[in-house]
């Protein structure tokens, strides 16, 4: 019995698919869906520590805020520095108390990095060592940026330290760079707070360094001196924060949009496919039962379907989110319990047609039970219709769920395209011109929606002979 149902279904599926392959738009849609599924499945590999640490500031502090994607370099005339991590430092111990670390950076762009972050990890014994970090420019000029004491935690008589310093982040550094530049500037001198600090630090030491800086390209060096007895550096890293970042840029708080996007694809698919699966099951059971039994059962079920048809989705979603909490599973649940209605109508109408077929009558005459006929004969034939309709519904579900985020009712524990768009809206990304933050997550919604719509319409054209004529 079950084997026959599977065989019926497979045969039907093969037939539908062989015709489906002829539909270009449908194949494009299918391609989009499959790529998205692959991206979504690999989300934990491609983008680890993203979904769970979206609200963790430390996770994102080494990324620039509001940096456009790297490919804007190819669109505009000015080339901006990309994110760069330098892990190797040539380290040398001069005298017994001073350790010198040198990090090289080749600057060949029009705009320098936003900031430079220095990580040092190691051990010391006895007194706290001092750290002095400076920028040594290609013209030999040296700007001392950081001068601080390193504090560690004592374990087994030695102190372990892990220190992070932003070389251009604080007001002290601002003053230092400003002082350096002041002597070259012949025009009016703007206040330190108005200066683009790295642009000045990486500019030619000449008139205009503060007002209209010209980039000084060449080999730069970050020099770090550690002054202290028995100080040992175990690992070190220097991060040059980009003016552009990654494939999709970063948002206003430094989140990598590409990583969030991947999780957006994952949750978009989880939502869409769960709702589709749930509604197809309900609609098949409902529509088939209604069509098979007919009479007053059909009448009653149709009236019930019409009542459900009249229930608006958004108010129910909003009220559940406000009263019970904001969970993606509530959204999936509500949508599943409401969206089957349209599919059930189609299923019933087609079911009535199938019922007329002689083999159903034959089955009845041979004494097959109602549920057996429904399962064995009718459901395998109906599945393509149901899938087509469900595919057309998925974009509606994804758009509605994203809209909930904009209303302030999104699930706070997950990162979706809606999360990113609602953050963009609250942070005023539109009026700050941060187009990548708005455009790319929305394109995700559109792309996935387009994929499902074109695949669904293609299946509909295949299974519905009336539409094929057109």
């Amino acid at each position, binding site marked *: 019995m079950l084997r026959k149902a599977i065989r019926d279904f497979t045969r039907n599926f093969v037939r539908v698919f062989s015709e489906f392959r002829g539909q270009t738009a449908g194949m494009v849609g299918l391609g989009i869906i499959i790529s998205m599924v692959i991206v979504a499945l690999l989300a934990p590999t491609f983008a680890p520590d993203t979904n769970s640490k979206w609200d963790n500031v430390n996770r994102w502090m080494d990324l620039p805020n509001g940096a456009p994607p790297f490919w804007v370099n190819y669109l505009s005339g000015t080339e901006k520095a990309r994110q760069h991590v330098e892990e190797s430092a040539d380290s040398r111990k001069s005298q017994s108390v001073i350790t010198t670390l040198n990090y090289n950076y080749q600057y060949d762009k029009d705009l320098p990095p936003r900031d430079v972050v220095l990580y040092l990890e190691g051990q010391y014994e006895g007194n706290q060592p001092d750290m002095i970090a400076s920028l040594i420019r290609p013209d030999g000029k040296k700007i001392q940026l950081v001068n601080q004491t390193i504090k560690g935690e004592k374990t087994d008589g030695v102190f372990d330290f892990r220190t992070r310093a932003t070389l251009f982040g604080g007001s002290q550094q601002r003053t230092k760079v400003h002082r350096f530049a002041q002597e070259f500037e012949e025009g009016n001198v703007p206040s330190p707070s108005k200066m683009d600090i790295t642009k000045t630090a990486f500019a030619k030491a000449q008139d205009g360094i503060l007002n209209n800086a010209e980039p000084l390209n060449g080999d730069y060096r970050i020099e770090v001196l550690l002054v202290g007895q028995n100080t040992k550096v175990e690992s070190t890293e220097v991060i040059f924060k980009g003016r552009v970042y990654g494939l999709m840029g970063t948002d206003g708080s430094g989140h990598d949009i590409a990583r969030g996007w991947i999780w957006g694809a994952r949750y978009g698919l989880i939502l869409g496919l769960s709702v589709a699966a749930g509604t197809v099951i309900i609609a098949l059971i409902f529509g088939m039962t209604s069509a098979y039994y007919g009479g007053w059962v059909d009448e009653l079920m149709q*009236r019930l379907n*019409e*009542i459900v*048809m*009249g*229930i*608006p*989705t*958004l*108010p*129910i979603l*909003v*009220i*559940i989110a*406000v*009263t*019970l909490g904001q969970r993606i599973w509530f959204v999936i649940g509500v949508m599943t319990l409401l969206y089957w209605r*349209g599919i059930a*109508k*189609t299923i019933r109408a087609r079911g009535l047609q199938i019922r007329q077929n002689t083999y159903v009558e034959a089955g009845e005459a041979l004494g097959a039970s109602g549920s057996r006929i429904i399962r064995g004969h009718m459901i395998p034939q109906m599945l393509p219709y149901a899938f087509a*309709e469900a595919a057309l519904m998925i*974009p509606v579900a994804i*758009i*509605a769920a*994203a*809209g909930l985020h*904009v*209303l*302030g*009712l999104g699930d706070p524990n997950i990162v979706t395209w809606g999360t990113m*768009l609602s953050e*963009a*809206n609250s942070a005023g*990304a*539109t*009026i*700050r*011109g941060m*187009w990548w933050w*708005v*455009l790319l997550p*929305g394109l995700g*919604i*559109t792309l*996935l*929606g*387009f994929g*499902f*719509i*074109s695949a669904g*319409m293609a299946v509909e054209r295949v299974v519905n002979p009336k539409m094929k004529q*057109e």
Partner: protein
Amino acid sequence: MPARLKYLIFRTFQALVTLGIVILIMSSLFNGMSQQQLQTRIKNTVRGRIQNSPELQQLSSEELQEWRANEIADLRQRWGLNEPVWKRIFTNAWDTMRLDFGQSFMMTSPTGSRQVMDIIMSRLPRTILLFTTAAVIYVLLGLIVGLKAAQVAGGKLDKFLSIFGMTSSSMPMWWLGMLAILLFAFKLNWFPSTAMPFPQTTGLDYYLGVLYRMALPLGTIVFNLFGARAWATRNIVTDILQEDYIMAARAKGVPERKVIYGHTLRSAAPPVVTSALLALLMSIGGAMITEVIFNWPGIGLLLRIAIMQNDVPIVMGVMFITSFIYIFGYLVADLLYGLLDPRVEVGTSGRMR
């Protein structure tokens, strides 16, 4: 009784049942939450009274305990917390049906009223203004473009429309709004990025000012919806163009203009009008969120503010009004279908999804 009247009564009854179910769902959910809120409110009220009254502070701890217990019992009685749950739900549902949503926690209407209904009513006209203007434009535009595409099925416009309709309906309306702000407000600086504040002038100046602020949200809604509308019109019309009587009219030599605008449009009207109305209802949610993006001071923005401030009575009120509009809009679409098409005795529910 004529079949049509019977159908009207039946469908109205059905719509009322739907409304009743929605209200019951809302009231049951609301009840659980308001119960908690009332309990905290009682606790705070009693604590406040003790803190503000020197006489109560003089009492011994046992007397104070007793006073407190009495006071809590009294407040519970007054605020209906002692009633059984089902009764509280029904009371709440009854209040909702009488459009009594109680008072807002923090907001007031321009006239200073804290009644949720007054606050909603002060905002509703602006939503209706934006929404109906957009609807008129995109339905007409959809009709014109759809007819043009149907006349040359498989032509350039037809092909473009099928892709445009598909693409635009997979875009969230409010996202298009954000893109519109980026392009027309940030980049080109043609229109304001926010609808507020509303102009303070009167007369023609006022209307022009409103129109200037409305341009972007209006354009967004129209752009998002007219493609799918035109595509639907095109499909309905191409179906009709294949009917025998159209063929006959053409064969008879009736001018093409007359075939399209006379014969075809007459038969296309019922499905076109109803499907437009249904599409309109489907887009209410998106339009409300679009208000948030443009800061358009309608009920969508009100909903967003109420959610931010956790002002539950307002959320309930706005969502009830939305449900009400939706359910009765659906009813009207259904009845209109039967009314426009003399061949149909039952409404759309039998044939529309």
